[in-house]
């Protein structure tokens, strides 16, 4: 019988910020998304003020002012570093770790049930991460990934658990499922949850007791898998990683509306540079390049325009220079003057393994091996210090860059930003 645990970092972005701000520990704090748009992380005091996950800033502005809520702009450099530290620590503590997102990881503890209490092992994991990295987390342990996620939610919701729930016992599984909303089950979500409730399935336990064949007929094979998982039959393999990302998407809302083609070129070029970097990290070449842009659909007083365009590349590539050139040609083909653009982005898709890329029969120019080398060198330099070598098209001033008014220092990744001690 497999034993899986889900480790989930509590209010991760806020926890990462507060690690270096002992002065704010008991104050309500939130982290805002790109462009300072909505709340994407809240600590317990902020939750207590009724700030909901994903709440747009303008909706909570009054609460922020009245209660002196501390707001942080998203500092992904910091979060990525802290996340990496937590994951590294988990990898030291568990036989096998599958990173699920920036703040969640599954641990494979199969066989460890014979070595002693899983709950006390779980507590040692939580304590170690808190002590060594400084980030609080919760651990849910059970026999399938879906049940481990459920156990984790229980550990988060009920402080009496001390942040660890061992849900390997079927009786306990049923007790927790009976008080869990069906919409909170991993893989169900709000929309399907609503449909299930209309059919009389309102708790996780109702779903567990539903007939799998009936569920498959009326919903999907995915939800049928969830039913089996809730009954302790592991259907989602531990390292169920989609073999390759199907596409890479880089898109942002602009800090200021863009009206000039030259500004838009900078934005698109820099997004594509980022996308190409991600693509090379995946070891892939892309066969399809997409560029899109749009005005603010919510502002009906202004003329509206939205368009996107894609091109299939004859030779899939991961060369920043090729991809940026294509993206700029695509941009020219859909650019229209006289509009104030709010958002633009690029997408790479149709991926091929770099190692199996083929030369065309009628190719004139051979695939440039120096290109691969150049890109590798570029990535290496930029890994040492972000944005050290950039394409001139990316622009230097970047007035279109997103709004990040309350950005914290990069405490762990920049010499100039080290925390101060007296």
């Amino acid at each position, binding site marked *: 019988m497999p034993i899986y645990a889900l480790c989930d970092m509590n209010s991760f972005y806020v926890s990462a910020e507060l690690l270096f701000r*002992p*002065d704010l520990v008991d104050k309500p704090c939130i982290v805002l998304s790109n462009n300072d748009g909505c709340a994407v992380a809240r600590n317990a005091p902020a939750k207590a003020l009724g700030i909901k996950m994903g709440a747009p800033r303008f909706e909570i502005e009054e609460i922020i002012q009245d209660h002196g809520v501390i707001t942080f702009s998203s500092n992904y450099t910091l979060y990525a570093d802290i996340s990496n530290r937590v994951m590294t*620590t988990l990898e030291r503590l568990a036989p096998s770790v599958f990173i699920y997102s920036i703040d969640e990881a599954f641990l494979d503890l199969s066989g460890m049930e014979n070595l002693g209490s899983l709950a006390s092992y779980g507590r040692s994991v939580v304590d170690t991460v808190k002590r*060594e990295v400084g980030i609080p987390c919760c651990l849910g342990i059970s026999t399938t990934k879906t049940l481990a996620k459920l156990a984790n939610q229980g550990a988060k919701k009920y402080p009496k658990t001390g942040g660890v729930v061992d849900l390997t016992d079927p009786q306990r599984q049923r007790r927790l499922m009976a008080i869990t909303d069906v919409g909170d089950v991993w893989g169900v979500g709000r929309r399907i949850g609503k449909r299930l409730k209309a059919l009389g399935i309102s708790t996780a336990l109702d779903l567990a007791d539903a007939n799998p064949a009936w569920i498959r007929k009326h919903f999907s094979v995915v939800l049928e898998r969830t039913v089996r998982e809730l009954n302790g039959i592991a259907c989602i393999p531990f390292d169920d990683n989609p073999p390759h990302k199907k596409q890479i998407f880089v898109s942002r809302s602009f800090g200021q509306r863009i009206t000039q083609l030259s500004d838009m070129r900078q934005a698109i070029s820099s997004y594509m540079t980022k996308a190409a970097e991600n693509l090379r990290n995946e070891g892939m070449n892309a066969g399809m390049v997409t560029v899109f842009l749009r005005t603010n659909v919510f502002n009906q007083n202004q003329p509206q325009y939205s368009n996107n365009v894609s091109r299939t590349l004859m030779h899939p590539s991961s060369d920043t220079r090729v991809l940026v050139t294509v993206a700029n040609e695509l941009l020219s083909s859909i650019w229209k003057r006289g509009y104030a653009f709010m958002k633009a982005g690029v997408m790479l898709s149709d991926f091929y393994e770099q190692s199996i890329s083929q030369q065309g029969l009628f190719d004139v120019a051979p695939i440039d091996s120096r290109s691969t080398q150049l890109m590798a060198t570029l990535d290496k330099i930029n890994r040492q210090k972000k944005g050290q070598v950039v394409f001139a098209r990316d622009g230097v001033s970047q007035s279109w860059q997103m709004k990040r008014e309350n950005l914290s220092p990069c405490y762990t990744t920049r010499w100039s930003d080290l*925390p101060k*001690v007296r």
Partner: protein
Amino acid sequence: MTVTLLGSVDVDALSKTAVPFYSESVPCGFPSPAAGYEDTRLDLNELCIPRPSSTYMVRCDGDSMNGIGIFAGDILVVDRSIKAKHGDTVVAAVDGAFTVKTLALKPKVQLLPQNRRYAPIEIKEGSDLQLFGVVTHLVRAMQR
């Protein structure tokens, strides 16, 4: 004086072998049978940061520890995974700010400055000492 051009220098190859390190001291006279064994180049990370995931760096911004040679501008390497002992140099959060002090556990819990102009910080019984970590190394550029 004349010079002869011998060819270009392979900078990569040079940097890989630039600092060979001999792990033994070199005694005059009788050679050690193990002498001359070449190790890889020294990596300061290995010495100062054996546990990267629990190590943070902070910059000193005061003179309260001048007495043991910690000065403003110094970078302190702080390891959170070490259990603090009596006498350790630690970084702690006091009144919402980070401070570096010497930890005293006996006769009572105190954070001791190493400068007469500062008073010890008493940690009252029942209140939590918010330790950030133990200072393991000090980094200072001697030329600024």
